[in-house]
């Protein structure tokens, strides 16, 4: 019995250390390239105002959708907000805002003060649904096409270059 314990203990240790070794050679920076080309499915997002849900089909109606994760407490989200407002004028693009781990009244105030660029608005109070989209922190944005294939993913606040990039893609 003691021998079995010893051996399994050693195997566990080898495993942990082995993972550490492999982990060292992995790129520690968050890389989104692998996500491009993947398809999003099983969307189930709670509507911001009521208890209805957005599903895949809601987004398949649009030519292009930009999914933007934001919160009122997030300072960089404020920085990118004017750019989103500018993007909202594009006819070929709908913007889905996902309000991340936020309080409703504060989120409302944020939109009242700074304007609402979103065609659809969903909430993710626990931050659980955003995990499915591979969200690491906010703000992050994902551009998808009609088939819900990811065309591009933006980590951090959108910049002017990102915006012109998006406009180029959708037109």
């Amino acid at each position, binding site marked *: 019995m003691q021998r079995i314990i010893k051996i399994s*203990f050693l195997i566990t*240790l080898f495993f942990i250390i082995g*993972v550490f070794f492999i*982990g060292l050679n*992995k790129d520690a920076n968050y890389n989104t390239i692998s996500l491009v080309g993947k398809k999003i499915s099983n969307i189930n997002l709670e509507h911001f105002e009521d208890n209805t849900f957005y599903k895949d089909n809601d987004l398949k109606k649009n030519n292009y959708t930009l999914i933007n994760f934001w919160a009122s407490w997030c300072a960089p989200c404020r920085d990118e907000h004017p750019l989103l407002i500018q993007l909202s004028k594009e006819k070929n693009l709908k913007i889905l805002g996902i309000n991340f781990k936020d309080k409703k009244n504060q989120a409302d105030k944020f939109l009242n*003060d700074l304007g609402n660029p979103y065609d659809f608005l969903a909430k993710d109070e626990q931050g659980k649904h955003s995990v499915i989209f591979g969200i690491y922190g906010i703000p992050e944005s994902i551009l998808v096409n009609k088939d819900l294939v990811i065309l591009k993913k933006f980590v951090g606040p959108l910049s002017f270059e990102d915006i012109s990039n998006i406009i180029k893609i959708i037109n």
Partner: protein
Amino acid sequence: MISNFGNLLLSLNIFLSFVIIYCALKCLKTSGKLISKTIYQISTLQSTIIIICFFTLVAAFIISDFSLTTVYQNSHTLKPTFYKIAGTWGNHEGSLLLWVIILTIFSFLFLVFTKKHPKEFRIFTLIIQNILIVGFLFFILFNSNPFSVLSPIPIEGLGLNPILQDPALAIHPPLLYIGFVGSSIYFSAAMASLLTNYSHTSFAHSIKNWVLISWCFQSLGILVGSIWAYYELGWGGFWFWDPVENVSLLPWFAMTALFHSLIVFEKRGLFYFWVITLCLLTFILSVTGTFLVRSGILNSVHTFASDPARGIYILLFLTLMIFTSIFLFFKKYKKENYDLNPNSKETFILVNNWFMIFYLITIFLGTIYPIFTDVITGSKISVGPPFYNMVILPIVAIFLLVMTIGPKVKWIKERFENFKNYLFILLGSILINFLIVFLFKSYSVLSNLIIISALFLIISSLLDAVKSLKNKKIDFAQIISHASFGFLVLFIGLNNIFSIEKDYNIKLGETKNFSNYSIKLQNLELEEYSNYKAIIGELEIINTKTSKKNILRPEIRIYDNPQTLTYEAAIKTSILKDYYLTMSNIDRSEYYNIKFQKKPLMIWIWISVIMIVFGGFLRFFQNAKNN
């Protein structure tokens, strides 16, 4: 010049370590009971040289000698002298030098203060400690050399990370390092104990003060780090379950378990192999922590000095350490048969250890889980506060109950006669809890449970103090630490329930009202300092109920080198509460975003931790006096 001198000292230190190992092995063969004077002399020289080596680096920072890469990357001529000095250990290379200093000095002090113990045990401890020193010195010399040169010599340095320019953070690493690295000495002692079969209870005696002192400094280091995070990071919290914070907690749990089980080992001669396991585990966890933080394998908000290439060396070193110690442990391990009475002090301390190990494993898994998912499935995830709160918090309530009863239970066997007393105290605690909840109108089952058990521990500890004052057999150290832990949990619980948080966009002259408060942005000023500019907001906060006025001045700082924006919270601390205010600018707008928080009893959270540590120091001095 400085570079050559520094490298010479480092090399000399490696040489001296080898000499010590050689002399120690030679001394083993002699028949006398004393360690030869030469070893003492070389050890003194070794400590002196490593200290000179460190101060050479400090000097390079003070005179801004940018011929050294480390100084160039982490300092700037305009930086205040205090932060130039703190810059010495605010980076990877310098902090490793600090590691080696502590390794060396502890090695020397252990040699001096353990004269009553067997020669072989002391010599093996010295040898193992010097192997560790050599390992780290090689790492410094060939991989992370603080004295490596830069040519041509730059005129100006790159500056220190502005959020590291802070008094709390300047002393945070040295405190934490004494804890982390201090555990090396009982790692070496445990190995030596296995090698020399020194399993007498006096082994506990030889290491208990080293465990205590490293525990005290580790706790202080964690405290100072939390205080820094509280006022510097601007989120209003003090613990974020961030990987870097977690790795500082792991050895802390092991140390706490260790010095409790040491009591049992010393008094009753039980748990020898368990004590050894914990000794080995503590230092292994310290090195693992260093590996996780320094290699960059984990993403964290505050790894300021990380480099994946260096990870390989630390990991190899760690692997070697782990397998050597395990090999030795398995070789020497003998099954111990305990006949413990369920109602005895031994059992309660064992249960305390289970709790510590439970917390340790939970936090360890949460911390390394993202590495596993990344390597195995390729997905990046992070484990956040919800996981830790869900797993750890409910257990805290039970832990506090055990902690209350444990110290009062007798060795070997206790009869159940205090049951009535406990029942009364528990009822009292429940009553006080509901009084608090009723008065302030807030309710959550879990926080109530935790508050009740914290009160149970506090009241019972205080009653004990009163009772033992009469008998004049009072154990101040234990009562202070345990009661303060109860207070800590109580204050954190109350702080959690009764905090208020409000978020507004406000422009100059505007007033916002909510519940009993009104906030007005009265004034904005731009001030220039030697190494940064600051936009300072002046906000008046009025409590409309009491008409009490407070002025808070949060800042937005723009640092020049490197150009960085930081938000400085304004905090007004009083006995019952903190007002916490941060301000950030909104681009292309005259509005500022302000976040106001009322955080009850903050100062008492810090004081509780200081008192817990005070208990530790008290025990340390009591032990030292009794020796």
